[in-house]
């Protein structure tokens, strides 16, 4: 997969040591992300996995420039996209990026669609945002987009409003809107979370097909490692606002080098033997505002020692075929006993 890539080429997207805090200005700051790292090449698919509160969605919103305007802000770090620095970029710059260069499918497809407008009106809006389309052309384009996302009876669906569509259909419409302007990168934030498994399968294969047809790179956010393994080349694991492991999907699944990644894998029910306990991670995920000092995972980690409690959150370091933020990455084998 990605080991053979030529490293001289600049990645399409590179996020380095990104920190995002709530509470701008002089007041008390509440960090929600403090060490996010992500690198993505042209046409590559990277998954972001982590539990609620780990900062996945905040990272996505930083990547499309829609952080809550008065609430959160980038404190430090860089976001380079296609040769351009986007951290702290003004809205004028974002208008040229959002939708045109980076398409976005939000978490809730129901909330993403306007309930009082028809699908057609909303798609035409996405299409004409680029300009130079007559209404008639834009309508034809909208119908074409629905065909691209494999919606049968496109004319009927164009006249429908969101409540008349099933969850899977709505998600297809959201995907159509996200790819309307032919972006280089598509970000899908938990695109299948509320859907049935059969529909999930259809949406995932649609995203994969579109990625190939349109030569797009993909960031797929999910709390389900199995979903990411199915669709992505690389994966980045987040825990409590920090990237804790990143690398090829196969490497992280065969030999994870962070105890949290391993815990996510072994606590999965599809691998469990009926009648035997699941290997659950003890305790609860560290929530925003109450991150422990030291490595954030130490209170739940079997490898934790004095150094883990004392030092700051470790940075991602190369180990085996991936990057890990665990100072005991070489001792992972001990957990298998």
């Amino acid at each position, binding site marked *: 997969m990605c080991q053979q890539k030529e490293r001289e080429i600049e990645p399409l997207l590179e996020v380095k040591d990104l920190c995002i805090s709530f509470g701008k200005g002089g007041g008390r700051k509440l960090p929600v992300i403090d060490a996010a790292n992500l690198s993505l090449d042209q046409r590559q698919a990277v998954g972001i996995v982590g*539990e609620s509160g780990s900062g996945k969605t905040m990272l996505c919103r930083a990547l499309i420039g829609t952080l809550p305007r008065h609430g959160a802000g980038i404190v430090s770090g860089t976001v380079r996209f296609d040769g351009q620095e986007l951290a702290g970029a003004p809205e004028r710059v974002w208008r040229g990026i959002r939708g045109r260069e980076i398409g976005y499918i939000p978490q809730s497809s129901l909330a993403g669609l306007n309930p009082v407008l028809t699908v057609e009106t909303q798609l035409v809006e996405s299409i004409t945002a680029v300009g130079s389309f007559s209404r008639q052309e834009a309508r034809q384009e909208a119908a074409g987009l629905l065909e691209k996302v494999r919606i049968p009876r496109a004319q009927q669906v164009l006249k429908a409003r969101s409540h008349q569509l099933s969850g899977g259909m709505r998600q297809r419409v959201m995907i159509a809107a996200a790819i309307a302007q032919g972006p280089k990168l598509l970000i899908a934030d938990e695109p299948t979370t509320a859907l049935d498994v059969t529909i999930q*399968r259809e949406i995932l294969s649609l995203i994969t097909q579109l990625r190939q047809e349109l030569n797009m790179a993909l960031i797929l956010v999910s709390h389900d490692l199995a979903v990411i393994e*199915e669709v992505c080349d690389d994966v980045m694991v987040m825990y409590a606002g920090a990237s804790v492991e990143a690398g090829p999907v196969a490497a992280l699944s065969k030999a994870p080098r962070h105890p949290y990644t391993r815990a996510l894998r072994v606590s999965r*029910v*599809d691998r469990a033997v009926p009648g035997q*306990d*699941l*290997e659950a991670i003890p305790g609860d995920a560290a929530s925003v505002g109450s991150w422990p000092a030291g490595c954030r995972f130490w209170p739940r980690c079997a490898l934790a020692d004095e150094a883990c409690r004392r030092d700051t959150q470790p940075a991602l370091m190369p180990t085996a075929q991936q990057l890990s933020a665990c100072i005991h990455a070489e001792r992972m084998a001990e957990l298998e006993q």
Partner: protein
Amino acid sequence: MTAVTAHAGEKMQQKDMTRPLLEGKDISVTFGRGAEAFDAVRAASVTVHGGEAVGIVGESGSGKTTLARALVGLQRPSAGEVWLEGQPLFSAGTEQRMPRSERWKTQMIFQDPYSSLNPRMRVWQAVAEAVQVWQNLSGAEARMEALRLLNAMGISDDQARQFPKSLSGGQRQRVSVARALAPDPKVLIADEPTSSIDQSAQAQLLNLLRRLQSERGLAIIFISHDLGLVRYLTSRVYVMQKGDIVEAGKTQDVLERPQHSYTQLLIDSIPGR
């Protein structure tokens, strides 16, 4: 866990594999009338024995939740009967409600732990309330009992003093289980209990449910669209599609040799296959 295992021996002896603990016979639930009528469940028959874990799987809208609600008396069936320990609980057409003396035996936990707890009650109060409904205890005794139930679910006294908003999804779901266990029920219906909680909390909750079933002899009806969960937790399964039970049998047989094309589709859709 020690506190809740006290009844295990007694319960096991009561277990009578020939007579089902809970039985739904030809249950139909129709919403609306005339041309608008919609059959949510059509002539579904389900049996659950004491101490058994049974799964109901299907997609959204397949009728699995409606069927389960009919089994615990939260939804009046339009046809069919529900029997508990050999006694008819209610049958369609009669105005009779599920008798209070029987209601404690079947309890349910719901999909969304965020909306199933009162946000203005402290966690221990929510459980103590349920305790007082079912047991004739003083306020102080009910509080002790609530804390005992919560501790057994891994909720500390400290967490029990909080309001639900301060708890994580997984913790809230364990509070729901404590609440459901207040009357010491015989059947627990768990409706997609893990679908809105994080993966690490999922494993904790599933271990807990499995122990309640194996150590305490609690019968569990587990509703899910996730065959992986059902495979791990249940010994028998019913597959529902659009209101009909299309396949039923031992979980292992159904998953290894599905007879119905819909079951096959569900199996093929599991991520990672």
